[in-house]
């Protein structure tokens, strides 16, 4: 007999009905997918990255399909925090699942201002601090590239918010564990990883880069082994929970991340291809956990590390 709460997951102070989240930037602000499936299979909605001022995003071509992957250079197109609160939060508040708001800044002050503003907004359950966007010139990935700046952003947000803080790390670094330790030390409640891997593609006919921004972030099944390896490394380095993501396309992928040490997992590019990926993965993962004879999915966490 399966335990009714087998998928219930505690992520820092958040109680989730499933360990499955949407990856930021792949589910908009929740409404689009709510037309295709019942959101109750979701642990939480992680919304598209928000900045203080509206951003129009990057010019030119923003997408390239590569082998089992997708390179994007959207450039954090978003309506800005005020418009987000007035236009998108009412829908998110009506949902029975937590809304995690992903934030990006050009400066420490912008991160602090966003944290303060969103902490005062009704319905925001947690913040995901993006220090890893490869598609904006200032800030973004630059903050996530070394321990000091990653810790500085985390502290700036921590000082202005009592919400649970999930810091999203960039894979475009030499030593992911040291960055993870730095943000843990600076007050992060959880870590999410990985953001996209910096990549590019060239048109052999025009002999020019395809993306308007030249480089972009690679996502999709192609990056899963790299993401899984980083979750493994970070799990060994820190005590705070991990939201694992990067190329998860089916329940087996999700199970691998949990076995590597992830408390929750996020689904991104797979939802573009199959908008029903999250409910399908939820059912597959639940069945897997039941077959393993555990009372809760958390019992599977990090099992791959056992001798």
């Amino acid at each position, binding site marked *: 007999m399966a335990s009714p709460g087998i998928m219930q997951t505690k992520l820092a102070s958040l109680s989730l009905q499933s360990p499955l989240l949407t990856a930021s930037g*792949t589910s908009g602000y929740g409404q689009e997918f709510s037309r*295709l499936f019942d959101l109750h299979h979701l642990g939480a909605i992680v919304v*598209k990255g928000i900045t203080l001022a509206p951003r*129009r995003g990057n010019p030119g071509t923003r997408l390239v399909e590569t082998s089992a992957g997708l390179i*994007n250079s959207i450039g954090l197109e978003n309506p800005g925090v005020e418009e987000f609160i007035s236009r998108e939060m009412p829908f998110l508040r009506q949902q029975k699942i937590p809304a995690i708001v992903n934030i990006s800044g050009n400066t420490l002050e912008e991160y602090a201002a966003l944290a303060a503003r969103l902490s005062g907004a009704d319905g925001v359950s947690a913040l995901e601090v993006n220090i890893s966007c490869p598609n904006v010139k200032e800030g973004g990935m630059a903050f996530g590239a070394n321990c000091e700046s990653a810790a500085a952003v985390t502290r700036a947000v921590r000082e202005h918010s009592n919400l649970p803080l999930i810091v999203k790390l960039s894979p475009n670094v030499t030593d992911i564990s040291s960055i993870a330790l730095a943000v843990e030390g600076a007050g992060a409640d959880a870590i999410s990883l990985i953001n996209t891997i910096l990549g590019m593609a060239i048109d052999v006919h025009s002999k020019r880069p395809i993306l308007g921004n030249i480089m972009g972030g690679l996502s999709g099944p192609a990056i899963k082994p790299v993401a899984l390896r980083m979750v493994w490394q970070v799990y060994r380095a820190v005590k705070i929970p991990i939201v694992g993501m990067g190329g998860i396309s089916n329940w087996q992928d999700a199970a691998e991340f949990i076995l590597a040490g992830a408390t929750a997992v996020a689904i991104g590019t797979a*939802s573009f*291809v199959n*908008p029903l990926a999250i409910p399908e993965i939820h059912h597959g993962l639940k069945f897997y956990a039941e077959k393993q004879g555990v009372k809760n999915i958390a019992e599977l966490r990090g099992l791959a590390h056992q001798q």
Partner: protein
Amino acid sequence: MRLVTTPLLVQAPIVEHCLVAKEVWRLTLCSPHIALAAQPGQFINVRPSSGHDPLLRRPFCINRISLEAQTISILYKIVGRGTKLLSLYKVGEQVDIIGPLGQGFKLTKPMERVLLVAGGMGIAPMYPLAKELCAKGSRVTCLLGVRCADDLAEVGELAELGVKVATASEDSGGTYHGTVTGLLAKTLRDDDFSQGFACGPNAMLSAVKDVCREARLPLQISIESMMACGLGVCLGCTCPRGEGDMYWHVCTDGPVFNAEEVSL
């Protein structure tokens, strides 16, 4: 009156899959929901493979809508891996599709004399548009442009609807030797129209837009874009707006726009 409903993800069985010109295929799929909901100019997002490579869905304009048969069709040419895989599907097999998606042609006001301009695979949305216009009493002329006359599709079918069809081919196999833009300029010198609709590559649409602006002919265009989700989520399929420095998202704001609203 038709129902406007939300898009649906369906495994649609293939009822017909045939070559209609040298390299142009028509794929007809059974989906009562999409057939009932679809409007001319809307598209479906087709998953050519259940594996990881190629990864993404491909958007295709809806080329036929049959309420009686509860089917919709798309028209495509093999241009890459996705369309190659699609061409291998057999009648009776199912294709994973989402639709109907996007904003179709705006046909609210009466249009007496209508000019359709299609370049290459831009012919795809023209048949259901012409059918609806003819049913509303419009007099429709359609200009089809192709590189090589072997690629001409839909000429007979459009004529059967009562559409006056003229073709332009760069290899001199059409009724006009040259580009469809050249044929358009000639047609506008000879005749008056109250509304134009165009679909084709961006360079062609840009030229058509210039010619129509000169002739003061209101124009709606259907544009093509690389897409990841087709649902307005990924924000990847942008097109600059005609005014200001913001972008449209082709999948949800389009694919049909008033020509003056976009910068090509």
